[in-house]
């Protein structure tokens, strides 16, 4: 609606300006009204820009919100969505202007001088028709070429990323020639594509300018024989180009918005994927029974876990060992509800996981992943992940229990040290202990732990093992482990083997 109003105002002001200017040029002294119209057009420009920009910002924010809930790719979230700007600020408003303004101009022309209006009315449709024809003709050719352009353009990134490898094999010098050849190839191929791609705007521009000439020359000739007065002739001259302009810009903005439309499709595809469905049944943490489950990550891949069964009694600590690829981590993910078995089931206190309120179930489980994520925030915030309301004293006690207090106290700002993307990094062992502190603070009856000591240095391993022992004490636990230090904590060790169809 706003766009329609803005387009109507634009049509009105375009006609008014041409009208007044032609009168002034023909001798009358309407300078002030003309200045007012000019001011009006400036205000309209402000309005159009603001509405377009604000719409773009609002739509992008709404999309970002929805994409965040789906955990979408960060590139799409930031710069990716910026490709929508030309769509909302350019193409969308221009669509309305292209429908309204030429009509307004034609009506005014028809009133003033029907013969000129007829010329414009006949030539105006040529713009979209030519545009469509040329576009149709060139699209297939350009689409085919973009693919090869993409390849040539990507070569530079490929070579720079692999410079270390080139140097190691003494090929770095020779490769400079290849960079040159590929860059030249890229230029030639791009120009071949552009020669065709620019044809459409060339045709549109020629059609528009020739049409102006087609209107102006007869108007001049009719002035000579007195069948047209000067004011009307000037009006025709001023208005005629305004009829073609919106259609021509629509073509340009259509191309500029192409990337935006692609991004919109991409975002829709992310949003269309089904979100996690979950049941609503809540249970007390009791016996965990895994019954003959098969888990597969992609349809075309071999199952990560095939026909596996296991029962963990309340209070029992079960360690899983076995070669990598046997499905140990997959089993943990399945128990937490992150991986869904395609057959078989997992029962918690007799209730199928598929019918459980997953969020409520996960509140009963403290999870220590193999590679815990450090969130952007303070050390304390990271430990508080599962219990944001926990006091500083509780955070500290959890850190002490996890053998983490010592290294946290040595950090520049202690528990207030900022970690994550823009903050400090921690060693693998320190991360593990922070994750164990997280789990301690959760104080959940069940612990699920994934290889906390893999590839740690000796001191780090000893500390993590001690932290893990304290965490497991008095809890039901399912843990992947392979070091003697940790295995000794377990009541029972289950050894997994590789699935029969090993990759």
């Amino acid at each position: 609606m706003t766009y329609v109003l803005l387009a109507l105002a634009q049509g009105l002001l375009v006609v008014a300006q041409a009208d007044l200017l032609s009168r002034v040029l023909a001798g009358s002294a309407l300078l002030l009204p003309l200045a007012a119209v000019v001011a009006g057009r400036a205000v309209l420009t402000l309005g159009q820009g603001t509405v377009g920009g604000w719409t773009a910002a609002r739509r992008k924010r709404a999309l970002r919100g929805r994409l965040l809930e789906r955990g979408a790719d960060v590139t799409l979230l930031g710069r990716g969505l910026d490709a929508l700007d030309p769509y909302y600020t350019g193409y969308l408003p221009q669509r309305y202007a292209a429908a309204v303004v030429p009509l307004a101009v034609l009506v005014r022309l028809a009133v003033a001088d029907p013969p000129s209006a007829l010329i414009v009315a006949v030539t105006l449709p040529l713009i979209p028709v030519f545009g469509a024809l040329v576009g149709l003709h060139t699209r297939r050719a350009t689409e085919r070429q973009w693919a090869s352009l993409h390849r040539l353009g990507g070569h530079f990134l490929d070579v720079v990323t692999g410079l270390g490898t080139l140097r190691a094999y003494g090929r770095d010098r020779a490769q400079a020639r290849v960079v040159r050849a590929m860059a030249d190839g890229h230029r030639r191929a791009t120009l071949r594509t552009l020669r065709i791609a620019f044809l459409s705007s060339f045709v549109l521009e020629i059609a528009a300018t020739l049409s102006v000439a087609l209107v102006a020359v007869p108007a001049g000739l009719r002035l000579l024989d007195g069948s047209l007065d000067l004011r009307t002739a000037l009006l025709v001259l001023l208005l005629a180009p305004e009829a073609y302009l919106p259609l021509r810009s629509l073509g340009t903005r259509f191309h500029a918005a192409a990337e935006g439309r692609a991004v919109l499709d991409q975002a829709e595809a992310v949003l269309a994927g089904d979100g996690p469905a979950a049941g609503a049944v809540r249970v007390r943490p009791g016996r965990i029974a895994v019954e003959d489950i098969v888990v597969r990550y992609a349809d075309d891949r071999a199952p990560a876990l095939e026909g596996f069964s296991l029962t963990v009694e309340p209070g029992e600590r079960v360690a899983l060992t076995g070669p990598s690829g046997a499905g140990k981590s997959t089993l943990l993910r399945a128990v937490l509800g992150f991986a869904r078995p395609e057959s078989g089931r997992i029962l918690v206190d007799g209730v199928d996981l598929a019918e459980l309120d997953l969020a409520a179930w996960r509140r009963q489980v403290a999870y220590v992943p193999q590679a815990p994520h450090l969130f952007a925030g303070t050390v304390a915030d990271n430990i508080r992940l599962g219990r944001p309301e926990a006091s500083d004293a509780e955070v500290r006690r959890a850190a002490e229990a996890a053998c983490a207090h010592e290294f946290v106290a040595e950090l520049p700002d202690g528990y207030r040290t900022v970690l994550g993307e823009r903050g400090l990094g921690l060693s693998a062992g320190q991360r593990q202990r922070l994750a164990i502190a997280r789990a301690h603070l959760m104080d959940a009856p069940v612990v699920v732990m994934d290889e906390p000591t893999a590839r740690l240095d000796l001191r780090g391993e000893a500390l993590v093992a001690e932290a893990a022992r304290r965490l497991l004490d008095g809890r039901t636990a399912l843990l992947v482990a392979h070091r003697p230090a940790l295995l000794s904590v377990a009541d029972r060790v289950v050894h997994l083997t590789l699935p029969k169809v090993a990759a």
Partner: protein
Amino acid sequence: MIARVIGRRHMAALAWAVAAGVGGELSAVGLTACAAWLIARAGQQPPLSALALAIVGVRAFALFRGGLRYVERLTGHDAALRVLADLRVRTYDALRRSADPSLGAVGAGGRDADLVQRMVADVESVQDLLLRCLLPAMVSWAVGLAAVVLSVVLLPAAGAVLAAGIVLAGAALPAVAALASRAGARRVAAARSDLAVRGLDVARGATDLAAFGATERFVTRAEEAAARLERAERRSAAVEATMNALGTAVQGLTALAVLWVARRHGADAVPVTVLTLTALVAVEAVVPVADAARRFVELRPAARRVTALLASAPPEPAVARRARVPARPGIELAGVRAAYGRAVALDGVDLRVPFGRKVAIVGASGAGKSTLLGVLAGETRARGAVLLGGAPLDAYDAADVRAAVRGLTQDAHVFTASIRANLALARPDASAADLEAAARRAGLLGWIRSLPDAWDTPVANDGLSGGQRQRLLLARALLADPPVLLLDEPAEGLDLPAADRLVTDVLGDERTVVLVTHRLAPLKAADEIVVLDRGRILQRGPHDALAAVRGPYRDLWEAERLHTDHSVGVKTW
């Protein structure tokens, strides 16, 4: 700065593009002026012959306008792409010569990969700098100048007014736009980076968040950043719209002022019409300079970074005949220390590797294993003595050291090219038989033969499975056939029996092999095993000796046996 980026030899190509652009825009001015003259003169009802030239002019300018615009676009893109091609070569050369190998040694590592991506994006952005800033600005100014000259010829006073309008729209407004947008761009960038960090937490930490019931809290936190970004974008949009509105106002008011001044000087209807309409088109032609200025402010930092990179590269080292690396070199490290910033990676390592010896390095991640390989290959700078064939590494050309000591490294890259090209990189003169032999040893030959295009199958750094990628990189390292072969985690991504066979096979070679691995089973074939922990050697000796005594190696060995028992079925005890 810009001249450095563009390079002198491309100035001519750019000049052609500017000339075509100016021609096209002048045709637009000419079309309007001619048509205005035609109508105004016709109103005085002169003989038809007086209009003939104007009629031809109108038609000619109408044709030129479209034609020259087309030529401008093509020549402009041609010039920009020439500059880009040249810049790519110069950047590559600068990186290659750069003393700091870290930029070249980026593999899949997170921040380094981002750095390379940004640098490549910086180089590409030069295209925008030319096509969307410099070219339009130069064309606009030239057209503005031409219109002012035309107006001065017709009526000096009107020309002066137009000049004022052109300066206002083509210089003053752009300057204000650039300043205003810089502050806005900074706000947007800050909000965007906040959103990126928080969005990254939500995406990469999804499992942790779900497990701890914190998803909602973190999504809300990210949404707040999105809201801040929206506010910043709205402000920028308002500023931009204001600048555009001012441009529109300047355009209309300049035309009005020209009209008024021309009238006051008693000019006749014909020059008044021509001057007014010319002013309208001429100012319209310079309004886009504001947009160019905004973009210029955005793109300048990238151009600066590129210039800095080009300037920082050291000159090509003089080719001095230095010592030749012996054909069967031994290696000796004594008291070697290496550090990344403040983090110590190697803390006094002594190691003797006579030619033909097989040494395995084991230890935790972060123990310094890969750094030790880097020191051996001369890629990582270290203090202490590093001797190759009895002489320090400095005695040789760096390229000769690399030719003698190399192999499979963590940063190895698979290029977007055929399998053959990716292998032949290691030895361009290798015969088909050599290629096949290397592929066979790496366990890759069967897979290659099963592919429809076999050796010509295109591959890329991503897209291969972990195992195929590893085998390809291994085959490449074997094809290079260096006297000292370095292997960093050759078993990664391979199934254990195959990996063990492969490592045992390589350890049977005549050459020197230095191997970093987490997998201990095949190390019975190694002459010496070195256990590294926090940059120091804890234990050294052959497998059987180390496995027989209590200590870190036996711990690792027992853990591995527990981990890789190949008995069938679920066993419980």
